[in-house]
């Protein structure tokens, strides 16, 4: 995403903006060209879901496109897929509070420090249990040569397993590894996991059954479990949820209000953030969504507002304490990215004033998974003027609430949010008339996001040739849509998530507050195209660990196969290339698995990269 910077004093353009190629004038004429009934159904499925499954096209046609969209706008009326609920059940961190997460998944440094006596056992009973569980299986040994202390398991691996078993675990094929793991008696499994070197644990992750995978991760790096749960849940929901538009919107709004797992305490805060600040609000009022993010520890930590202090309340405890004062990070991003947009008509002065209003919006002890609280002693009590509105001196938490009101009701916000939604759901360069109609709905309904979505999804522009297959799938959409199209059975979603990351979208790990863009140019590079083709072949040949496709469902006829995988025809060039290749391969090897070859080629084709 290209953005302008508004630094202190002068206005400075980001280099990316300067270097950005000038967009050609959009051909809005295509947005007047209507779609056929069949195309409408395909298009609705392409945009409101993570890709059509076989049978979806017929179902939408049967129900009627309009009625189906109305249902998707009311996810509470759709019964959730029990299969999804089964898959989410073991991912316990999804349901934990922030403090519970810290307690149950302590960082490895803490465990080591306790083992070496540098730290006392934690007082918190849950943390203590987690640490003790691991302590009972390790001992401290002095490494005489380097003068370092190392932690070693009490029972070494070669006393727990035979040499052949260890060899098979290290160098065997996946099946041999699975056999050895299955043969370990359950009372020994914890000792074995702890006795393994970290590298071996990592190596076994893809072949181990889900419960064992969690143990392996928990010993290597307990916090990895938190990320793995989040990432697996994201893919499971994209692939299996019956409430597809709801999941698309959670993805959209998470990116809109992006936070990054890798920033310090955010690793404990992000599961709660998605569950409580984003998910309940995606079809609600924008003001509620904005408030939920503004009071979320994840956002306050990510954009440093928790440390932002009024200048006069600055107290430096000692020379080594970092200097603290007003931090404008959150104020700037809130206006630029969350509400008004970069051209929304605010100045650097407004940034500073908004930052002053939010002083004191902080977190109680973030490293322990603390909660939001308003600290009046950090708050700037002076008068502020935000976008021309006077916020009188002497206020408290209310100052921030007033800012949220001003921003949520600002016409620039209505326009900016409408444009972002249209860019994600209609086309990279949506017609201004559509944005204006959506913005009007936003203003008329005081930011009712369901109504804004409805205006967009019922528009003629949405069902037009300008929107039809105009978007390139993001990596998450590409991988999920392939799994959906093939009816894949996913037991362990990390290999799929690693594919998403390799294509450029490591989930929950976008560093910048911009979140991931949905713009086509963002997702098409040489390396990522190759990655997509390789993944397509791998999936069709059942070579993705943790995921099974039923290749008996694949079809040999390229046209029929396209109907199944794309819900529509492939381009003639694609079909011809596949037919030609098929003929050649059959000549060489009459037993070649033609349907799997066709499926792989189709999912790697230009057609499948579009939605």
């Amino acid at each position, binding site marked *: 995403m290209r953005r302008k910077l508004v630094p202190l004093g002068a206005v400075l353009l980001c280099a*990316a903006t300067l*270097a950005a190629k000038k967009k050609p004038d959009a051909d809005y004429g295509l947005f007047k060209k209507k779609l056929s009934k069949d195309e409408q159904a395909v298009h609705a499925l392409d945009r409101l879901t993570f890709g059509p499954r076989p049978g979806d096209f017929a179902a939408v046609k049967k129900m009627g496109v309009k009625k189906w969209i109305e249902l998707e706008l009311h996810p509470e009326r759709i019964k959730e897929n029990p299969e999804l609920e089964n898959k989410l059940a073991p991912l316990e961190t999804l349901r934990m509070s922030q403090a519970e997460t810290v307690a149950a998944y302590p960082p490895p440094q803490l465990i080591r420090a306790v083992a070496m006596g540098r730290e006392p056992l934690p007082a918190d009973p849950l943390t203590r249990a987690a640490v003790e569980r691991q302590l009972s299986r390790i001992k401290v040994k002095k490494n005489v040569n380097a003068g370092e202390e190392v932690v070693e398991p009490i029972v070494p691996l070669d006393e727990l397993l035979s040499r052949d078993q260890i060899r098979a675990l290290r160098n065997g094929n996946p099946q041999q590894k699975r056999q050895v793991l299955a043969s370990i008696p359950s009372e020994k499994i914890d000792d074995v996991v702890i006795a393994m070197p970290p590298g071996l644990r990592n190596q076994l992750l893809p072949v181990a059954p889900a419960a064992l995978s969690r143990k392996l991760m928990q010993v290597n790096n307990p916090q990895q479990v938190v990320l793995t749960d989040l990432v697996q849940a994201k893919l499971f929901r994209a692939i299996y949820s019956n409430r597809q538009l709801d999941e698309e919107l959670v993805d959209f709004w998470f990116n809109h209000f992006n936070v990054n797992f890798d920033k310090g305490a955010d690793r404990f805060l992000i599961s709660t953030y998605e569950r409580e600040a984003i998910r309940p609000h995606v079809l609600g009022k924008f003001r509620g969504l904005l408030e939920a993010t503004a009071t979320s520890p994840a956002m306050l930590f990510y954009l440093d507002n928790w440390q932002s202090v009024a200048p006069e309340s600055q107290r430096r405890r000692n020379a080594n304490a970092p200097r603290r004062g007003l931090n404008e*990070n959150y104020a700037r991003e809130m206006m630029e990215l969350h509400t008004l947009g970069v051209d929304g008509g605010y100045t650097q002065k407004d940034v500073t004033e908004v930052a002053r209003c939010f002083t004191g919006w902080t977190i109680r002890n973030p490293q322990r998974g603390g909660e939001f609280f308003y600290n009046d002693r950090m708050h700037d009590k002076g008068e502020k003027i935000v976008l021309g509105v006077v916020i009188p001196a002497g206020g408290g938490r209310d100052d921030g609430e007033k800012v949220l009101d001003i921003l949520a009701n600002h016409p620039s916000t209505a326009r900016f949010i409408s444009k972002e939604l249209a860019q994600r759901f209609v086309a990279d360069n949506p017609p201004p008339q559509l944005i204006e109609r959506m913005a009007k709905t936003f203003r008329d309904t005081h930011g009712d996001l369901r109504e804004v979505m409805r205006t967009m999804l019922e528009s003629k522009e949405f069902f037009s040739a300008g929107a039809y297959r105009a978007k390139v799938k993001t990596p998450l959409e590409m991988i999920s849509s392939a799994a959906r199209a093939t009816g894949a059975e996913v037991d362990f979603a990390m290999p799929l998530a690693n594919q998403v990351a390799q294509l450029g979208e490591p989930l929950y790990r976008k560093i910048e507050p911009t979140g991931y863009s949905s713009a086509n140019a963002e997702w098409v590079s040489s390396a990522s*195209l190759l990655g997509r083709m390789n993944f397509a072949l791998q999936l069709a040949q059942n070579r993705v660990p943790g995921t099974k496709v039923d290749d008996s469902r694949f079809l040999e006829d390229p046209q029929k196969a396209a109907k199944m995988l794309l819900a529509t025809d492939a381009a003639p060039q694609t079909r011809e290339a596949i037919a030609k290749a098929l003929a050649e391969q059959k000549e060489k090897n009459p037993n070649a698995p033609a349907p799997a070859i066709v499926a792989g080629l189709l999912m790697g084709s230009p057609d499948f990269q579009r939605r």
Partner: protein
Amino acid sequence: MNRRIFLKNSAMAMVGVGSTPAWLSRALYASDAPSPRKKILVAIFQRGAVDGLNVVVPHGEPRYYEMRPTIAVPRPDGTPDSAIDLDGFFGLHPALKALKPIYDSGRLAVVQAVGSPDPTRSHFDAQDYMESGTPGFKATGDGWLNRAIPAGAKSPLRAVSMTPDLPRALRGQNDAVAINNLNEFQVRDSQESSVFESMYENTSDKFLNGTGRETFEAVKLMQSIARQAYTPANGAKYPGGRLGQSLRQIAQLVKSNVGLEVAFADVGGWDTHVNEVGQKASQGQLPNLLQNLGDALAAFYQDLGDRMAEVSVVTMSEFGRTARENGNRGTDHGHANVMLALGGDIRGGKVYGDWPGLAEEQLYEGRDLNLTTDFRDVLGELVTRHLGNRQLGIVFPGYTEAKYRGLIS
């Protein structure tokens, strides 16, 4: 020569010359390339914040020894556990001995007390700022190394990162690829590869058609390189580990003349809060990492031989570490640091930068080495004087006060 013709030529050259290792260099540059070869910049990021004061040691500064009673590198005395003197005041950590001959030959320069002016001590923010090239501004969407190459259609392998994902520094407008391994840049099944190629070649989807064509051109180039078993020249031996592998593959790309302009590699593990060095200065965490770094850089230098005339390598790390050692024989997050630059264009054999001193009042916030050179002064000089890109306002937006240290004549 436009990019497409360049690629067609090189592809034909590969077929024509067959397996001769020097295939492309002759084919490309002997006949129709009157201008000298393009310069190449290799950036190495030491993630985790290396302790610059124990890399290039101020052994002439008594305060250094007062502040680090157990982890200081001893004054040069010719033994393998003491600093290797550079100029009577500074010395290299003994684990970097492989770099001393390069320093002596005038091709390795050191910049001390350099870094980012932003006060953050967060790895996350500081790496981000250093890679975006805009300290203090989180909103920058692209990286300095991407902006350092001029926009326009060039080789698809002009900007390469030897990492699993594209790093922040290389993201942006210009084509850049992350290649963990040269052999992986392909459609794994060659039969399917040609089918995909024909689909993307013929598709009416203009957008995917363009990138698709470029992709298969790049794949062909890359395969011809990867197919050759690579033997480093001049007896160079790369050390084990990821950095050695990365530099070895960058050397291979340089010698293959595929149009490389900038390359990126990173190496982690520098966050030495505890037991930074062992009982002797040459042992322990930091010395092991430095040994690997020094050996990898020296192997790269040796391997490229004459080709180093076109190449500059620069190292950086997000911030330095506290001037005082902490209670765990380690150091905590600090401020200014050290950067190394080597290559044919570098006026080496010298430690650059003003020494701010380590007295209490000379320290940054009473605890860290102060900053006397902005990292953008070093990178900016490499970008303008080595790569020849004078658009510094685009590479480092808002940085108008660049003061070059004269690393390049």
